């Protein structure tokens, strides 16, 4: 299993992601809206974190399965990432064509986990 720190959650990065993904849910950009919904503050988009994981899956495929294609992914969101949180990603090879990726914060609390499957192109 490999583990690495990939980024830190900032309001700027969430605003940029909201713009390019069209996900305009205010709980990811506006502290007042987040607090109205009982959250302690702005939370990162789950799919922004899933994108960080997705990039690791792409890099795994390029390095180890260059003649394969990605066929499916399944992501479960299990925790919230707040502004200033570090995002760490762990990658574990379950089988040659199946990997599990986890995103964790600096306290090693699980944010989301995903399985990616590949098959020969």
């Amino acid at each position: 299993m490999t583990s690495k720190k990939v980024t830190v959650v900032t309001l700027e990065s969430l605003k940029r992601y909201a713009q390019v993904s069209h996900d305009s849910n205010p709980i990811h950009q506006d502290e007042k809206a987040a607090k109205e919904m009982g959250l302690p503050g702005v939370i990162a988009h789950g799919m922004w974190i899933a994108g960080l994981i997705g990039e690791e899956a792409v890099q795994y495929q390029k390095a180890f399965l260059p003649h394969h294609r990605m066929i499916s992914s399944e992501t479960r969101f299990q925790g919230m990432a707040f502004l200033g949180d570090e995002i760490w990603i762990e990658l574990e090879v379950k089988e040659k064509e199946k990997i599990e990726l986890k995103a964790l914060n600096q306290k090693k609390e699980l944010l989301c986990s995903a399985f990616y499957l590949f098959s020969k192109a």
Partner: protein
Amino acid sequence: MAANKEWLKLKSGSFEESFSEKDWNDFAKAVGAQSSDLPTFSIRLFWNCEKALLDQMGLSLKQLLHGGQKFEYLEKLKPGTTYQVQSRITHVFEKKGKLELMTFVVVQSELQKDSQIFIRSEKTIIVRGES
């Protein structure tokens, strides 16, 4: 909030979506990716269609959390191509959370061109608070 089984009858209609090479690259940059063909990019193409369903349900975006996301990648997407997107609600159920009863809504969407499916999506949404 209570699960509303009437939501199961809702359908989105068909939406047309396309994207440019720049959209692809900007999306990748927003997550610090080296590769432009990120497997999560299609979430952008499903957004308008799924949002239309949520509007029919009378839900505000801020009530929603993303519980889970599945994708099946059947064909590669290409910039400059126009795709059709359709969404429907397949499951509505409740689960007791740590603090409150939560409603889960499962939305299945397909992105296709000329009746060929390129990507299937299954999104689980958690609905909080009153609509």
